């Protein structure tokens, strides 16, 4: 009975060995010319910022991610259903309508509760004007800079 698992064990060993070997080989063979820019973490061309230390992460992203997953799953269900549509027939159609109906109820609920609004408009403007001032146009901007900055940062930059 256990002999059936031997290929899996061999595969697992090979996978582990491949990972270790390729890392070790590149560490030994690659040329070493370290620069600060090279050792910085790469983040799709965006200036790397350490999120938890420099600023807080808005909890609203969590709601968006959750909603995304719900509709993502809906799509995942729709694809195989569409492929097998003919063989499932009317029964499959009704079942899918029920499923989409349930997701739609969730959508209406979230919409009504304000889950789709990033934040209330007037509150957003107030917060923005309190926290940020536009950069003076004379300040030269580098690619990583944003259009607005924290007031303290602007003042210290000017002084």
């Amino acid at each position, binding site marked *: 009975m256990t002999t059936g698992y031997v290929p899996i064990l061999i595969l697992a060993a090979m996978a582990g060995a491949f990972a270790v070997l390729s890392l070790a080989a590149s560490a030994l063979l690659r040329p070493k010319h370290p620069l600060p820019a090279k050792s910085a973490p790469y983040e799709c061309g965006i200036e790397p910022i350490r999120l938890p230390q420099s600023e807080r992460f808005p909890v609203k992203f969590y709601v968006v991610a959750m909603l995304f997953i719900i509709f993502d799953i809906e799509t995942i269900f729709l694809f195989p259903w569409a492929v097998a549509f003919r063989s499932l027939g009317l029964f499959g159609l009704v079942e899918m309508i029920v499923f989409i109906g349930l997701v739609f109820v969730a959508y209406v609920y979230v*919409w009504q509760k304000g889950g789709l609004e990033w934040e209330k408009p007037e509150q957003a403007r107030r917060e923005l004007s309190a926290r940020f001032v536009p950069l003076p146009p004379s300040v030269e901007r580098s690619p990583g800079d944003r259009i607005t900055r924290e007031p303290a940062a602007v003042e210290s930059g000017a002084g």
Partner: protein
Amino acid sequence: MLSVLGQVSGGPAVAHGKLLFRPIGPELILVGVALAVMLLDAGYPERHHATLALLSLAGLAAAAAYSLSLWSWTGPTTVLGGMVAADRFTVFFRLVILGVAALAVLLSYQYLERADEVRGEYYPLLLFATAGMTLITAAADLIVVFLALEVLSLSLYLLTGFSFRRLASAEASMKYFLLGAFSSAFFLYGIALAYGATGTTNLAGIAHGLTGQVGPLSLALAASGLLAVGFGFKVAAVPFHMWAPDAYQGAPTCVTAFMSAGTKVAAFAAFLRVFDVAFSPLIWDWKPFVWILAALTMVVGSVLAIAQSDVKRMLAYSSVAHAGFILVGVTAASHAGIQAAMFYLAVYPAMILGAFGVVMVVSGRGERGLTLSSYAGLARRSPLVAAVLALLLLSLAGIPPTAGFIAKVAVFTAAIQSGHWPLALVGVLASVVAAFFYLRVIVLMYMQEPVIAGGQREAETGFDAEPGAVGSLGFVAIAVPALLTLIFGVFPGILFGVLKSASIIRF
């Protein structure tokens, strides 16, 4: 999708024209009403608490009426491709759970009003949890058991943390969620191994596959062990009880009342069906395991409850101990054992829900007055509430003429008939220990003066002596369980008559 699963799990292939949805009618009603309540709350966000509660009650009543009509179901024993059983066993448990949910709605209405936590999500979550609980009693396939278990657990995680501004509630929710997710993984692993051992997740198929099995049974044994661990977590059996005191203490008291009663009934219904039916061919292998689980749960639950100074924690440990007493009935694994466990599961929810209900009524806004000392002299301040609590505590302790006594006698008798007299002995000793902390509260209520700490008593307990403060709804929710424990204690024949046909598990 149902048809595909039906074929995979070895059940009969579904003919699309003949899908019988009637046996899951109660669940469909509950989910439909829950969605309606959810949309109503989203569409009309102004205060309309009474409407939501009434609609939920109506839904529960409709589901109960529909369940009753299934009592005389004459169709096939399993429907939807062998996924759902249609027997009187599920009708019985459905009615118990729906009753628990209805009383929980009454308690919740008062609690939410007083705590100023009226948010419309509460009732849909309660109804979803109820739907999961009732579905699990009807599950004839491990996949459906798991599905129902998740539906009820996910709703309860949220309900536990419903007062998220109170730190204890959020913490309880987090702990419950983490340990619950952990136990789900055990359960799922058990299902996978059961499938590996027998090639099906269908309960009837598993029983059939194990009966003819010769040779090593290691996979099936591992499966039954993992499933027992999963169920052990849900019913809070020692050593899988760690989450229970924290979750019960932190949750809003109305939620504690609901989940301590409902979850246990639902999980034990599935426990009985899975172990006394599907794994009955392995009975001599899983019996010692459940035997030890029962003995440990009774002793540890009873002993730890003595050390508690918080009423909710004390009742939580007492509910752990009661899981042990019910496990005694499961261990007997005879018809008498199932019947005794079912009797216990009908009266236990009434006792614990009533007791937590009294705790809710007595504690003030923001969950104050939960220490044992705040019960001192309760009889003088509110004689009626004290009498109700005394009756419920006597029943929990198992003192005649209450239903708790009959229930304990029934499970111990079943255990002795199956030759487990040492377990019955352990049970009797544990209930003697348990009687101490129940009687201590009664003594506090009747024989001690109220503690007055610098004239702050009213503010501390948040409870004033006027009977009107209890609230009529809250009083109904604690009086009905108290009456039931008395009725079933004096006339247990009513319930046993029903159980004669309800305790036959068909699959």
